[in-house]
């Protein structure tokens, strides 16, 4: 049994989703600027501590347009990345998923897959979202594979959509509908 974070919001096996922590702001800024990490998340302008502080402004009344989490590694007891449900369209019941594992030594351990699974569940079951999307550039194979493992379908390819390391790359648009996700869950249970 692994320890639980005092502010656990969503409980997973390897990781928990917890609120952003202003004491970890230096870490967040490190991830946003890290040459290894930022390439895939397409952060092409340096992020300052002040930029990150916007996440800690008291939230407006009413529904949020974006929901952010820190990803907490349960066994190692430390934050390793963040996840976001962004551009929430409450009228159309759509949203985008975003995910950064900021510590590369945690890459390749299926943590992204678990994080995606937890965010998908939260978006469909708690926020009553109908369609989830993710924009992932073609070089970011780790990300689009973890989307596919979670049932996302490649809906479109945006040609030469982002400029990375001196080259234009295509962007895949992945999407997952609540109905299809429910169906997948049913199939998995009956296996």
């Amino acid at each position, binding site marked *: 049994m692994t320890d639980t974070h005092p502010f656990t919001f969503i409980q997973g096996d390897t990781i928990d989703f917890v609120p952003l922590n202003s004491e970890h702001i230096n870490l967040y800024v490190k991830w946003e600027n890290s040459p290894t990490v930022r390439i895939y998340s397409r952060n092409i302008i340096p992020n300052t501590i002040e930029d990150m502080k916007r996440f800690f402004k008291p939230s*407006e*009344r*009413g*529904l949020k*347009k974006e929901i952010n989490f820190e990803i907490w590694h349960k066994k190692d007891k430390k934050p390793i990345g963040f996840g976001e449900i962004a551009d929430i369209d*409450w*009228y159309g*019941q759509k949203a985008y998923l975003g995910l950064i594992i900021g510590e590369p030594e945690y890459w390749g351990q299926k943590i992204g897959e678990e994080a995606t699974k937890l965010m998908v569940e939260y978006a469909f079951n*708690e*926020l*009553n979202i109908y369609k989830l999307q993710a924009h992932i550039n073609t070089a970011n194979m780790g990300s689009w594979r973890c989307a596919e493992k979670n049932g996302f379908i490649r809906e479109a390819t945006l040609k030469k959509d982002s400029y990375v390391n001196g080259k234009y790359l295509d962007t895949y648009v992945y999407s997952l509908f609540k109905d299809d996700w429910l169906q997948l869950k049913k199939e998995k249970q009956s296996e």
Partner: protein
Amino acid sequence: MWPQTLEEVKKRFEPSPDRHIRDKANFMIYHKQEKRPIGIVGLDEINWVSRIANLFALIGELEHWGKGIAVEACALVIKYGFTELNLHKIDAGIFSPNQRSLRAAEKLGFEKEAIIKEEIYIDGKYHDNHEFSLLKRDWLEKNKL
């Protein structure tokens, strides 16, 4: 319940703050033949997560009472709520002395869910609040859509 000044009514026209999700959709009821506004109708208290809203209607010009205009206006807003806003359920609360509205609710296919006892004080007396609701799937079936 108390006099409304022009300023108070104007307050309702203030735009919602930037990035704020609107929780109401209000309409003026415009009489086509007479070419003038005669009332208001709309959905408020919209809960975008649960997809539930509250329906209200007011025919302000008394000579238009009893002509089925409120029913027509509500039917249009209900259709808007289900087919454009993708609501799951529409609620309406009607106070017991308002017999006309109680009949209108039934005509529109609403079901009475509850009676909240002595919920409002009007003219020296307490009255019950009749809580009505209409589910999208029942509305679709009733209208064969």
